[in-house]
């Protein structure tokens, strides 16, 4: 049976920061996106090339979707960077997690847990970032905090806080408290939704590949490509909706 670990495995340590295989993976994602954007967006021309045309098509499509939520093109362009970064970060790390070698290249660690009874356990070098709760929780906290910052920036601190703490009427007061609790629930649902999906996908792939190494994992791989896209989209779209609620005056 393949060993399945919920937490990410530590590879080494830099200045007290434990570098796990998922953290390494997110650095790789950043590196890939940096190189890609340097190569693709450096040579932009007013008459687009084939590649540029495709990219602009996607950007336009994304902006249109955001426009559908925010209502205006101006707002959609304003909040596009945050939403698109969340989307790309999650999407690329999910898809990289499916690549061959991501779960299979690694080393055997001598320091096995007490459960394995001193057995040497396999530690992969790379692991899909979102299969670590640290990644999804960090992203969820960042997203929710950003939502509140943007809300304050758009309608002012007093108005934004009055959405949660108000003494206008007892009903509003309790609704505000519930809203506040739901903000914390948002972080948890954000992080566990993404983590659960990606981690389950990883486990699913490991198990199917272990049971039947050939052909059978292929549909599951396709499913994981789809799930990876959907989860990235869900995370990005939920953030969009939360931003649009936070920057609106009435609640």
């Amino acid at each position, binding site marked *: 049976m393949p060993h399945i670990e919920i937490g990410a495995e530590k590879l080494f340590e830099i200045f007290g920061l434990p570098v796990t295989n998922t953290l390494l993976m997110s650095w790789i994602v950043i590196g890939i996106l940096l190189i890609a954007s340097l190569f693709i967006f450096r040579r932009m021309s007013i008459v687009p090339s084939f590649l540029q045309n495709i990219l602009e098509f996607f950007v336009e499509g994304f902006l249109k979707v955001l426009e559908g939520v925010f209502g205006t093109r101006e707002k959609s362009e304003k909040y596009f960077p945050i939403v698109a970064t969340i989307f790309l970060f999650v999407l690329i790390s999910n898809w990289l997690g499916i690549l061959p070698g991501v779960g299979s290249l690694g080393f055997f660690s001598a320091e096995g847990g007490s459960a394995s009874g001193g057995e040497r356990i396999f530690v992969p070098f790379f692991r899909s970032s979102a299969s670590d709760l*640290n990644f999804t929780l960090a992203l969820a906290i960042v997203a929710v905090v950003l939502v509140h910052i943007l809300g304050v920036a758009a309608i002012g601190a007093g108005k934004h806080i009055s959405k949660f703490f108000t003494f206008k009427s007892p009903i509003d007061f309790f609704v505000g408290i519930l809203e506040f609790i739901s903000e914390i629930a948002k972080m948890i649902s954000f992080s566990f939704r993404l983590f659960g999906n990606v981690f389950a996908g990883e486990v699913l792939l490991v198990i199917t590949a272990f049971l039947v190494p050939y052909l059978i994992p292929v549909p599951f791989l396709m499913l994981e490509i789809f799930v990876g896209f959907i989860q990235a989209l869900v995370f990005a779209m939920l953030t969009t909706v939360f931003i649009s609620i936070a920057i609106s005056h009435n609640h």
Partner: protein
Amino acid sequence: MSELIKNFGVDWKLLLAQAVNFFILLFILKKFAYGPVMKMLRKRKEEIEKGLKFTKEAGEKLGRINEEREEVLKDARGEALTIVREAEGTAKVRKDEIVTDAAKKGESIIMEAKRHIEEEKAKMGEEVYRDAEGLIRSGIARVLGKMSAEERDKELIKEALSELKTAAK
């Protein structure tokens, strides 16, 4: 709770690292991807709008120019016609004037010539008389020279008397 956190491997250092990762990525993409793309999209939109506006304006201008040209041509044609008509009128008037002038001039020239001829004729007549007088005198002198003095005197007296008689009358 702490057991749960430990099971999931949640570590505040890793949380912070991943959050920092997100902001690094946001910065990178904003600088190298979103910025250029947005700028390009906006620029292209402006260019296209400018182009369309320019085309529309050019079309309108062309239409206006064509209209103006038509009008100018029409005006010019009308003007040309009036000019030609006027010229015809003046030409006719001038022709009449010239013809009458010429006739007058011709007449005056003929008159002058006639007068001249008259004068010349008169002058010539006088000259003829003057010449004739000399000739006659010399002729008479020669004839008288052959006559005897008596006869001559007689003759002269006779003549003088007849002259007197006519003068007395």
